């Protein structure tokens, strides 16, 4: 069949960020990952008869930080509600969450896909507790329950349905992932489930106002899976509609092995959660004073830092955005710049975003674990700036420092004898030698072959193993050839 309709993709994301508190949101148990099953579950977590929840202030501070970081409204009074459903890893038979009045309202994040920038609006963010885990293996047909995770504080962050491609969704998820780590409220560990996303996906004919029927892809725990799952889902929905079927509201799971999404439950099976305000907890009241206190402890936020990089250092929007993609990278860059000087902002940015990023990527390292310190990189940049070494030699110095061969740029240059030859007399002698030994190239050049000139420069550089100052070599050659 012929495809005549242009389809628009509509995506909204719900993200569960596990908050970096010491203890659970409503009990004093530790939330550290990886303990033996049920050792981090106390009377409150296993919901013994008679126990009561007590809100952890630290979790509220995390929510305030987030609200401030995304420019949202922080509700002066929000309410915890019970979401009722039965599941063996939900000990109370209800999850304490926020329903009608969440703690964070509105706000948003700047994202970038290629050269395009976009602001994704948030609907809300609310505090809630995590459930435990059901373990279906190793119990001979029975199910094991681990309640270590039960009661772990989560911030559920919900966007407006504003993303129009899987690339935008991933860009948003990455920006959010960086932000929650930046402000120190979530460790961002996706393998351990500290940061997981659900994507609400629908399609509609381009230009149509009404949204199509959405399906929710649950528990996307990597950016790659998110991209794959959304792309598959979008194609599936378009095919369904184009083949005359309609989309039914459903919750689906992504199977990384097949790359497909499959329905988990339809709307008909949806729970009636019977939300109502939790009578065991008072409404959460946040005073302006508390917000100010939290604000004063916040680090400079990525968006503000990006602006500063553009204004103060003259970096492009793209460079500034890339350098502020993570707090660690931005901090690294700022140390480099402090030592190398603002006049070297552009080369410093290039080194961090280029050679350093590539080398980290090659070794599978995070910037915090880079074997080359910001001080060492600044040393390299300074030696390029003062003509001690060329860019080419600088890469060798970089590699030497990366592998631990020398303590700083100066030591490596000294030990290897990589100091650039800038002595005019020495270079002149060298140029004479090269001209004498390469008469053929000289003739070709004089006959109008521009390429021959480059060959002569190459010969001169080769003879000094790259140490001659290329600019001086070029100038002298031109002079001698009477150009």
């Amino acid at each position, binding site marked *: 069949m012929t495809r005549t309709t242009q389809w628009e993709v509509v995506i909204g994301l719900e993200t569960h960020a596990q908050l970096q508190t010491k203890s659970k949101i409503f009990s004093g148990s530790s939330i550290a990952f990886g303990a033996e099953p049920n050792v981090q579950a106390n009377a409150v977590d296993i919901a013994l*008869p*008679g*126990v009561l929840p007590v*809100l952890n202030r630290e979790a509220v501070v995390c929510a305030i930080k987030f609200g401030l970081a995304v420019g949202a409204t922080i509700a002066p009074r929000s309410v915890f509600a019970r979401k009722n459903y039965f599941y063996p890893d939900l000990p109370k038979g*209800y999850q304490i969450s926020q329903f009608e009045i969440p703690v964070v309202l509105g706000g948003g994040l700047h994202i970038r896909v290629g050269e395009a920038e976009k602001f994704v609006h948030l609907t809300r963010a609310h505090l809630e507790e995590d459930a435990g885990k059901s373990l279906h293996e190793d119990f001979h047909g029975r199910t094991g329950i681990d309640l270590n995770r039960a009661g772990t504080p989560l911030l559920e962050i919900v966007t407006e349905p504003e993303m129009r491609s899987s690339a935008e969704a991933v860009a948003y998820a990455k920006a959010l992932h960086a932000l929650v780590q930046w402000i120190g409220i979530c460790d961002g560990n996706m393998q351990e489930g500290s940061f997981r996303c659900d994507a609400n996906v629908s399609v509609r004919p381009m230009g149509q106002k009404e949204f199509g029927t959405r399906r929710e892809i649950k528990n996307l725990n990597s950016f790659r899976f998110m991209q794959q799952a959304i792309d598959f889902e979008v194609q599936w929905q378009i095919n369904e509609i184009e083949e005359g079927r309609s989309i039914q509201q459903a919750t689906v799971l992504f199977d990384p092995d097949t790359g497909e999404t499959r329905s988990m439950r339809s709307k008909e099976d949806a729970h009636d959660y*019977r939300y109502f305000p939790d*009578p065991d907890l008072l409404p959460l009241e946040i005073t302006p004073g508390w917000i100010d206190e939290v604000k004063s402890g916040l680090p400079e936020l990525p968006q503000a830092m990006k602006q500063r990089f553009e204004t103060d250092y003259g970096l492009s929007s793209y460079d500034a955005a890339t350098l502020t993609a993570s707090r660690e990278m931005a901090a690294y860059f700022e140390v480099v710049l402090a030592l190398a000087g603002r006049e070297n902002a552009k080369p410093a940015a290039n080194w961090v975003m280029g050679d350093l990023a590539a080398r980290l990527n090659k070794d599978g390292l995070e910037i915090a674990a880079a074997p080359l310190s910001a001080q060492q990189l600044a040393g390299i940049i300074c030696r390029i700036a003062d003509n001690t070494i060329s860019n080419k030699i600088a890469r060798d110095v970089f590699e030497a420092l990366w592998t631990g061969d020398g303590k700083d740029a100066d030591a490596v240059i000294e030990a290897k004898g990589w100091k650039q030859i800038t002595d005019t007399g020495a270079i002149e002698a060298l140029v004479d030698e090269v001209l004498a030994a390469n008469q053929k190239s000289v003739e070709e050049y004089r006959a109008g072959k521009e390429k021959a000139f480059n060959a002569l420069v190459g010969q001169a550089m080769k003879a000094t193993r790259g140490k001659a100052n290329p600019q001086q070599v070029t100038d002298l050659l031109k002079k001698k050839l009477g150009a």
Partner: protein
Amino acid sequence: MSDLINSSLRELSAALATKKVSAVELATLFLDRIEKFNPPLNAFITTDRERTLAQARTADERLNTGAGTQLTGIPLGHKDIFCTKGWRTSCGSQMLANFVSPYDANVVEKLAAAGMVTLGKLNMDEFAMGSSNETSYFGPVRNPWDVSCVPGGSSGGSAAAIAARLTPAATGTDTGGSIRQPAALCGLTGLKPTYGVVSRYGMIAFASSLDQGGPMAKSAEDCALLLNAMAGFDTRDSTSLERPTEDYGRDLEKPLAGLKIGLPKEFFGVGMDADVRAAVDAALAEYRKLGATTGEVQLPNSGLSVPAYYVIAPAEASSNLSRFDGVRYGYRAPEYNDLTEMYSRSRAQGFGAEVKRRILIGTYVLSHGYYDAYYLKAQKIRRLIAADFVEAFKQCDVIMGPTSPSVAFAFGAKSADPVQMYLSDIYTISTNLAGLPGMSLPCGFGNNNMPVGLQIIGNWFGEAKMLNVAHQYQKATDWHTRMPEGVK
């Protein structure tokens, strides 16, 4: 020794302090009485002589070293809704018939810290849902004044045990009248504090926004002593109130001259039995003799309290009781084929009919599409009811009326008709909805020589005032000293 069973807590305290009796002797006295009189009454459902005597020995040591409090060595029983470490805590249900609590409720902890000795756990309506103690999985409690009658509920075991002098004191809980109504029906004094005064930690939740623990004893003076030990801020209960420590007995001896008693006209209309009315009127006459004045006040929305309560309480209960799912503790059906069957059978078998009725009502009123019409509306009514009391207390110091519309009724008289049963609490429920403190104290006898209770409703945090008002009456009358014949 026999006078000890009728002694006040202060008298017991003095006897212990002067070594007229030891804590072990006192505990033994009551344990022996439990052995003798409990079987027909069924008030205690768990006792453990060794455990009790061990506690008594510890109390004696404390008394010997002079480290005791006024309550050290005095025995009491705990309503089986309070988690007690090492004791079965059943909440009157098959669901928890095998549950031994690994921790103590705050109230249990505090009374133990004061040195009180636990005689055992007291029967109750299943999950505190009932007004006659007929819904207990462990069978009904019988009223010591007439064993063919109910003791009231849900703290029926606590009331019957004190009335029969099986214990000098007991803990109770009151969600819609569960301390005051059985106190009235068994001829005792019981107090439900202002919501938030006593910690709910470890008190198995029925309706969280209404539940409040409180003391039950023979007199107001005893209740004041007990409340002093039970009350106080608890960081483990977010609804517990952080207030300065009070001596609830500080005003006991204040004369009542000039006291203004408000009589809600809504509490004196149709529905109250004539015998109850006569006893309450006589009590009010006594108060006027003591120098108080009485005047009518209005609680125009009190007629809505029963319907509002039977939306809010079941709604909260339906959620609170979800944890009883057979997964981690408590009853699990012996046979099931899958998870859904495990849940449905465990809960169908583990809960009794009244509990299931309230879970269904609560589930219904919270359902999508019904929430606004029921739960939200009921919460609005609740605020109106509280506002009525604010107005009424502008005209009076305390409010008085009957605790229950009738004296104790016969088994089965109301159990077939839930609405009739629910109306037993018609005078007590509005207090819980407003979070106010309330008391019941004996004020005479009605039909078949059964006790009648007078209700006092205090202003928020007006416990000391209520206790003063009750104590002055008890100094002038002797209804609270009467003891049923069958247990002498």
